[in-house]
């Protein structure tokens, strides 16, 4: 069975979000911005004014640094676009969502169901994962225009806030829903049933490490 494909606005309504199910494939239209540790620290810890109207312009926060350049005439060239792993940003996301009204968090690998239940669901937000994670060229094709690059001087190209106009940009996979359920944890649970058989006969290392877990259903994020 192939997954459902859906087009979604980057300023989605409550109904749009409620309709999404784990494993749906989504293509985005509208403005999206990149924000990761650099932007979060500058906006939340240094209290700099966010240079966009959020969430009216965009409720879609992409954990991404593009492969891009700023030309001498000030125009932009964006080649490939791929997400970075999101679990590292859990520290800032609750405050960021509250401040910006972000409803779509887009990145690599998702967050835990604990994150989803504690601050995604109360904010009416869900998580979209990139696919692969290397579909950078396909995502690049969905960039209709680079509208602006904020804080490039302060943060550098990789950490700057890129504002991207998306035109059927995708594919993305719905990795959390308004229940706070997590697609990756669902898959982990299915795989966990097989772990004992695969490990059969192998030996724990002679030299242990502090904090080591022998429970392979655990995650490292």
């Amino acid at each position, binding site marked *: 069975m192939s997954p459902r494909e859906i087009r979604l606005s980057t300023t989605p309504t409550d109904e749009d979000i409620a309709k999404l199910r784990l494993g749906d494939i989504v293509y985005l239209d509208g403005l999206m911005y990149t924000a990761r540790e650099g932007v979060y620290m500058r906006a939340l810890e240094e209290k700099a004014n966010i240079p966009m109207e959020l969430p009216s312009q965009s409720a879609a926060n992409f954990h991404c640094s593009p*492969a891009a350049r700023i030309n001498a005439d000030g125009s932009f060239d964006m080649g*490939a676009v791929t997400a970075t792993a999101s679990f590292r940003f859990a520290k800032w996301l609750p405050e960021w969502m509250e401040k910006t009204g972000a409803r779509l968090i887009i990145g690599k690998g998702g967050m835990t169901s604990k994150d989803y239940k504690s601050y995604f669901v109360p904010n009416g937000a869900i998580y979209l994962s990139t696919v692969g994670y290397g579909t*950078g*060229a396909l995502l*690049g094709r969905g960039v209709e225009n680079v509208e602006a690059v904020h804080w490039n001087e302060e943060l550098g*190209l990789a950490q700057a806030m890129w504002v991207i106009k998306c035109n059927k940009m995708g594919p993305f996979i719905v990795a959390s829903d308004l229940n706070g359920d997590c697609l990756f944890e669902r898959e982990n649970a299915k795989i966990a049933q097989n772990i004992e058989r695969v490990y059969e006969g*192998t030996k*724990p*290392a002679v030299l242990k490490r502090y904090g080591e877990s022998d429970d*392979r259903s655990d995650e490292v994020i």
Partner: protein
Amino acid sequence: MIPISLIQSTAETLMDKAAIDIPDDYLTGLKRAAETEDGDLSSFVLKAMLDNYEAAKEDRRAMCGDTGVPRWFVKMGNEASVEGGMCALETALRRATATATNGVPLRPNRVHPLWRTDHNNNVGIGAPEIEYGFEPEGDWIDLITVHKGGLFGTDYRMLFPSDGIQGIKRFYLDSLMAFGKRGLACQPAIIGIGLGGSKDICMTLGKRASVLRTVGSRNSDPRIAEMEEEFKELGNSIGMGAMGFVGKNMVVQCNIEVGYCHTGGMPMSVHAFCLSSRRAVARLWPDGRVEYRTDPDWFTPYQRRETVDWEPMHEAAE
């Protein structure tokens, strides 16, 4: 003598090829994986990846937005020489890295570890890495660039002889489980395993096993070659596929490289070369000829030599 301008222009072309064109050996391996995959989500992912390689090639844009950390391996025949010497070569490779970062464009990933200074060109202290190897004959030089992702999928552990093969398997599975969940390792990957050496060389061996050997290659030691096949099957029997979804393709290829180690130890490293297995190679001759390929052909009999003398050299001296 190999002209320095040729080294720089070839290096720039290699940066472009590595970022954009998926090597044929890996592509063939992934197509085979896509044919056998029956998990519905992981099948969708593999199909999207195959579309993505096409899109990258058609548009001449990088296949992945995280263009990794560009690095260089330089292999030289014993009679090769470079115009301006080896410092000129290093400057040319650094310059080509910076130029291509802006040109392709690549993501300027390289920053200072503490001050996070970013020169926006992938060049800095110790970056790009440049490593060397030599071959007993030839006046050519091989330039190899690899753009490997830098964050997940790699681990090191000091094992001991009493850990045995079952201990090696355990650490291998642990690494795949830890980094395969949620697809952090960007699998299906070429898994490189380093066994032996001193700690740092153990990491180097595993890294080179993943990035400098192709899909379909085999270690020249038949017993190690058997382990490679067995480990590939073992990894694929976990039941985990692309992105950590249920599936049967986690390992496209498993390469094992060894080095002699301390008699009391058996250090081991595991590396994952991701869905964007970016590598490109060129051989340059003094007469200006350049031949491009994607197989680094790094692990020659000379690189794996075991004894004091290298026989062909020995004979030549006589």
